[in-house]
C-alpha cells in the first residue's frame, strides 16, 4: 500500500489537515476522507462538472485535481456557501426559480456560478451559458438554471 501524505490546507475558510494517498483525487479526499459529500461524483473524468469546487479562486473539477495538490492552497466547496445567517443568494435563486430536478448536478452548478458571479455579477445570459458549459444537467435542461444565475447576479450586486 502506498504511503500516505499529510496535507495542510484551507477548506471553506477553515484550516484543515488530512492524510491521503498520492493517487487519491481531491474529489475522493473530500468525499471519502473528509466526509464532505456535497461535492458529487458524476463521471470522474472531467466531463460533467458535478464535482466543481473553487480552487484558489478558479473553478475546477475536483476529480481532476489530486488531493496532495491542495497543500497550502484554498478550496471552497458547496458546504462553504450557506452561513448561519442563511443561504447564499445563488442557492436561494436556484430554489425560487425551480432550477433543479433530481439535484445531483446542483452543487456543481451553484459552485461554478459562484466562481463567475464573485467576479462578474453583471454577467449576461450569453456569458452565463458559456461559463456553465462545463456543467451537465440531464433532467431539466439549462433554462431555469441560467435564469436563476442571472437572478442571483442581480441580488449579489
Amino acid at each position: 500500500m502506498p504511503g500516505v501524505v499529510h496535507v495542510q490546507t484551507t477548506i471553506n475558510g477553515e484550516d484543515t489537515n488530512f492524510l491521503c494517498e498520492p493517487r487519491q483525487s481531491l474529489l475522493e479526499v473530500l468525499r471519502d476522507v473528509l466526509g464532505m459529500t456535497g461535492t458529487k461524483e458524476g463521471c470522474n473524468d472531467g466531463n460533467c462538472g458535478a464535482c466543481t469546487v473553487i480552487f484558489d479562486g478558479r473553478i475546477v473539477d475536483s476529480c481532476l485535481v489530486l488531493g496532495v495538490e491542495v497543500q497550502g492552497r484554498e478550496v471552497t466547496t458547496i458546504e462553504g456557501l450557506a452561513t448561519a445567517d442563511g443561504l447564499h443568494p445563488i442557492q436561494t435563486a436556484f430554489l425560487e426559480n425551480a432550477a433543479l430536478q433530481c439535484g445531483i448536478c446542483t452543487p456543481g452548478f451553484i459552485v461554478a456560478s459562484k466562481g463567475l458571479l464573485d467576479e462578474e455579477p453583471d454577467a449576461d445570459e450569453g456569458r452565463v451559458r458559456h461559463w456553465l458549459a462545463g456543467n451537465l444537467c440531464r433532467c431539466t435542461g439549462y433554462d431555469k438554471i441560467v435564469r436563476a444565475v442571472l437572478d442571483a447576479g442581480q441580488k449579489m450586486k
Partner: protein
Amino acid sequence: MVANIVLSEVEYTHVGKRPIRPDGVDKVTGRAQYGPDITLRGLLHGKVLRSPYAHARINSIDTSQAESYPGVRAVITAQDLPFASLTKEELGAGYQALKFASNHVLAGEKVLYKGHAVAAVAAANLHVAEETAKLIKVEYEELPTVMSVLDAMKDGATLLHDDLFTSSLGETSKTASNVAAHSRFEIGDIQQGFAEADAVVEHEFQTASVHQGYIEPQNGTAFWNADGQLDVWCSTQGAFTVRAALADVLRHPVSKIKVTPMEMGGGFGGKIAIYNEPLAALLSKKSGQPVKLIMSRVEVFEASGPAAGSWMNVKIGATKNGKITACQAEFALDAGGFPGSPAASAAMCAFACYDYPNGLIDSYDVVVNKPKTAAYRAPGSPQAAFAVESVVDELCEKLGIDPIEFRLTNASKEGTRRIEGPVYRRIGLVECLEAARSHDHYQTPVDAQPNGKLRGRGVASGFWFNRGFVSSCNVTVNPDGTVGVVTGSVDLCGTRASIAQQTAEVLGIAYEDIKPSVADTDSIGYTFITGGSRTTFATGLAAINASQDIKQRMVERAAAIWEAPVEDVEYVDGVIQHKSDSELKMTFKELAQRTLTTGGSITAQCNIDPSGEGNSFAFHVVDVEVDPETGKVDVVRYTALQDCGKAVHPSYVEGQLRGRSDAGRRGAGHRMGFERRILL
C-alpha cells in the same frame, strides 16, 4: 418556450401554484444524501470484474490469487448465487426466469456483452479492490457476436441462449431463437385499407441504443447481518421492486430485506433493474461487513441501460383528402443480452395519435450482444414516433397537405379506440395541434438563409399511456398542526412538492405545514416504481384519499370533544365547526394541539391501485439549420407542446418538457457504439 394554456375550470389554492420544494434546501446546500453518499461503520468498497468480450464462453475463473491479496475481504462469482446450487427440477417453471435474472447479476456459462459482470471483490478501500479485481483470472472462449436486431433475426444467426424460444401469438417455437417474443395488433382489413389509399409511403428505419445518461452512477450498499437481515441503500426508482428482485435472485424472504431508497441523481427509467445491490449483498454476506459498490462512468455505459436500439418498418396510406386508410408497421427492438425490450410498448404507442380504420402491427423482442436494455422516458414510444412521424410528414408532402391539418384530420379524440383495445376518454391531442397551428413558431415561415445554410421544419406527435399501479401513503397529524405525509414513491422530479400541494389542497391548510417524506420498505405499504408517469396520479391520489380520511377523523374528534353528534360537525377550509352552534369552532391547528389529550394521534393511510389515468400527448415543432459544406446540424427553434392534464406544480412540468426535449435532441444526433471486443 412554454405558454401554459389552462383548461381546468376549477381554481385551486395550492394545486397549480409554484411553491419551493420541501427537499430544496438540502439539495442546494449539498446536504441531501444520495446513494453514493452513505457511509457505515466498517464499510468496505467493492469492484466488479467485467467481460472484455461481447460474447464468450467462460471456461474457468481462478480467484485464488485475488483471495489471498492483502486487504481483500471477499471475492464472489456466479457460483455464490443461489441459482448455482439449484436444479432445473427444483425450479420447475421458474427456471428460465431465475437463470436470466441471476446471469444478469453475474455471468453464468457465458458473457453476453462487453461489460457483463463476471466477478466482484470487496476490500478496505476502492484502490485495493480495483487491484484485486485485476488478479482474477478468467479463461474465455470467444464466440461470434450479434450486434443488431436484423443480424439476430437471420436464419442461422449465432444464438445468445440455446434455451430461448420464440413466444409468438400464443405458440412457442420448436427451435431456439434470438427472438424472445412476437406480438401482433390488428384492426380492420389492412389490404383493403391500402387499396383505398391514393398515396402510400413506406420506409425502413434503424435507431441506435441511447443511454439514459443520468449524472449519478449506479450504486448500491448492503449489510447482511448475522441474523440474516439484509439492509440495502441504493439509488433506485423503486425500493419495493429492488426488494422483490433481490429476494428473487438471493432466494431470501422479502421480510428479511429492507431497502432504503436514497436521493436519486437521475434515472429516466434506467434505475429500476438491480445491478450493484445483489453483488454488495453477497460480498457483505461473505465478509460480514457492509459493502458499497459504485459504478464508474465507463461501467454505467457498458453495463447498465441503455434504451433499446431498433429496426422498424412503417407504411401508411391515405386518401387525397388526407384521411388515413391504413397503418402497418413492424418494430424489432433490441433487448440486449436478456429478453425484455419495450417492443410491444412501441407497437401500442406507434399510431396512438391517429384514428384509422385498418391496422396491422407486429413487434419483436430480440436479444443481442449488448447490455440489457432499460426504460427511458416513455419506453418504446420515441423510437416508434421517429419512424411513424417521419412517414406521416412525407405522406403530407406527397399529398400537398399541411402536416398539422393532416394530423387534425386523423387525430385521436374522445371515443377513438387504440389498436390494442382501450377507448380514449377525454384527451388533449387536438388542443395540442390547434395550439401549435396558431403558435407564433408555426406561423413564422422557414426562411432561406443568406449564409448558404439550409433550414427546414419538422413536426411530430407523441404519446404515452401514463399509468396507475400500486401506491401507499400514510398521513399523520402532528401535535403542532403540521401534517406528515409518508409515501413509498422515490422523488425523482419534485413529487414531494406536488404531493404536499395535493395534501394541502384537500386539508385546506398551508403548503408549508405539510412535511412529505419517502420511506423505506419496512415503513410503508408496497409502492410500485416512480416511472411511467404514475406518481403524481397514483401516489397523489393515495395522499388525497388519506387526507379525506384525516378530515373525517378530525370531525369525529371534534364531535367527541364537544359531545355532539358527528353529523352536526363539518370541516370547511381547514376549520372544524359545529353546523348550528357558531361558538363551537376550531382551526386545524387548534384541534391538532388537543389530539394527544383527547384520544391520541390522528393518522390515516391509503393503499391504492387506481385506474382512470389520463393519457398524455405531445406535439413538437422544430426548425433545424444544416450547413451543406460540413453537414453540421443546429436546432434554431424548438417549440414543445404537451397535454399534461392539470399541472400540479407547473415549474416542474416545464422542467420535464424541456429536459425531455433536450435529451431527445441529443439522442437524435447520437449513435452509441458497441465494440465487439477491446484490445487488451
